[in-house]
């Protein structure tokens, strides 16, 4: 089912949450809305669901104009950040809710509802706890109940608001793989909101990067990673070090090292370069590059990360092999190997 938003504007009082956002999700696509808090991603999701209404603009679902349709008429499954399970109902009653509240004419018979509920309980691997109450479940279980409840009404699209936000790291990773497989198996069109770039890049077919109520870039994870369209996107995708540089004739000069600019065209003049931690080589002091002092070595991942500081005190993070012989306080030169430069802000 196609989902299209066209020129959507929404403000809350003086705060402009969405400044003319246009977007489309293709049938079967898993789309991520990625951005910092306040970027308007949740507002956009709620407008798609009919839980908020745009000041202007148009929402279409499956080619039908839904701009003013009530939430209950949109046939959209919504999974809330904090699950919003009905606390006085059992898991099974939660899942069956969307079917039992249908008007008599379209309500399936009781036995059909029970069958559908047990099917969904199987799908979310919770058949053994259909009789429990939400307060008796773990976070990951609640999340799966919320998903089953949304799927029970056979939604045309599935919307998820920070679906893994409240879960711990291990559960989060398992659950997102599982969610992706459910999406693929059921042939859904899904849109989910997240502020976690790793999650967005890992899970989505395409990622919509948002900031200040605008869309910065819509692309596949690979394209987003390889060709960030703006300094914001490059910065938000994470980890990149910012270094002042000079651009002339399409090449970037950092401390005497000249490299082609991997970012889209950036005019000549002073610019900000983004270099990812693994895109540095270490060299002896005195070589062309960025002279730094080693502050400490962090061993959080498979390869050690070096926290270094330039003469003016800005911190650069480097991931490099062969760091074992180094000690804090050592003088080094960082030689950038690849760089993306954007006009200095």
């Amino acid at each position, binding site marked *: 089912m196609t989902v299209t938003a066209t020129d959507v504007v929404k403000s809350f009082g003086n705060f402009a949450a969405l400044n003319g956002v246009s977007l489309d999700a293709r049938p079967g696509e898993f789309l991520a809305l990625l951005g910092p808090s306040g970027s308007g991603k949740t507002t956009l999701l709620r407008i798609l669901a009919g*839980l908020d209404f745009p000041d202007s603009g148009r929402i279409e679902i499956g080619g039908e104009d839904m701009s003013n349709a009530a939430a209950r008429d949109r046939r959209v499954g919504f999974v809330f950040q904090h699950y919003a399970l009905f606390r006085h109902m059992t898991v099974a009653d939660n899942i069956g809710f969307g079917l039992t509240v249908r008007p008599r004419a379209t309500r399936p018979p009781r036995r059909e509802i029970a069958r559908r509920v047990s099917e969904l309980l199987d799908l979310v691997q919770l058949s053994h706890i259909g009789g429990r109450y939400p307060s008796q479940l773990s976070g990951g279980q609640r999340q799966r109940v919320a998903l089953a409840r949304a799927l029970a009404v056979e939604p045309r699209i599935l919307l998820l608001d920070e679906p893994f936000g409240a879960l711990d790291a291990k559960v989060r990773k398992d659950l997102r793989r599982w969610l992706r497989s459910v999406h693929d198996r059921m042939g859904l069109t899904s849109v989910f909101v997240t502020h976690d770039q790793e999650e967005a890049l890992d899970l989505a077919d395409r990622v919509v990067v948002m900031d200040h109520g605008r869309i910065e870039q819509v692309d596949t994870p690979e394209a987003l990673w390889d060709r960030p369209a703006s300094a914001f996107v490059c910065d938000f995708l994470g980890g990149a070090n910012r270094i002042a540089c000079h651009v002339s004739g399409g090449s970037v000069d950092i401390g005497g090292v000249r490299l082609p600019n991997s970012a889209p065209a950036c005019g000549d003049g002073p610019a900000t370069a983004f270099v990812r931690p693994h895109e540095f080589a270490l060299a002896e002091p005195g070589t062309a590059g960025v002279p730094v002092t080693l502050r400490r070595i962090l061993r959080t991942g498979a390869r050690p990360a070096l926290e270094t500081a330039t003469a003016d005190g800005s911190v650069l993070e480097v991931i490099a092999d062969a760091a074992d012989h180094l000690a804090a306080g050592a003088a080094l030169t960082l030689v950038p190997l690849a760089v993306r430069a954007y006009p200095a802000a």
Partner: protein
Amino acid sequence: MRNNATTEPAWLRWALITLALGFLALNLLLPLLAVFGEALRKGITAYVAGIREPDAIAALRLTLTVAAIAVPLNIIIGLAASWAIAKFDFRWKSVLITLIDLPFSVSPVVAGLIYVLLFGLQGWFGPWLRAHDVQVIFAVPGLVLATVFVTFPFVARELIPLMEEQGRDEEEAALSLGASGLSTFWHVTLPNVRWGLMYGVLLCNARAMGEFGAVSVVSGHIRGKTNTLPLHIEILYNEYNFVAAFAVASILAGLALVTLVAKSLLEWRFAGQLAGRGH
């Protein structure tokens, strides 16, 4: 040994507990015992005679009637007001919240006088009401109005914080699952506040049966007709008919005790939900 940072020394704890219990015994328990003591002073026959007197029975019936009308009215209005306040955003919301508290801050006597001013013979609507042969003041409708006014905040005040704490997520979930506004209220909002609602209703009922000031102004004190239990007790007392006065008072106290026990049971069983923490 102190095993907890917030625990005070033993002597202080015992002093505070003794002080609180002593105060309660002196101000609450003693008068309650006195009521029953006075009522039974001339024996059980005098007590029964005081209660079985036709005017007393009429007063009891009237009190129960007024409560039976006022309490359901306030359940409906209180639910509507707290639903609107907790689940929707609109202009003048804070004004509405202030208005709900008005009956707590206004003296009940003033409330009664307002109704006399509005519906009395010389009042704003008086001539129209008389032309249509409707009597409000010195009749049951006036008693109900005054009671509704005085007891209005109990249900709403109990429900607003509870509903606000629960937020709108569950309602939004219900709507996105295809439920109508009414079935969302019926299947989601109402069950979530049911124990808080019952608590509010008990308090509302206790006050409705015991209200004196506002009711006294609009009643007209017609024996056997417009005297509620509290008013009837006052009349008996003023006539130096102490045994009968205390006998009737013991009925009122009994009703209050039943309410109190019911409330305690609720608190004990559903403490978490009453405090607004959900399950």
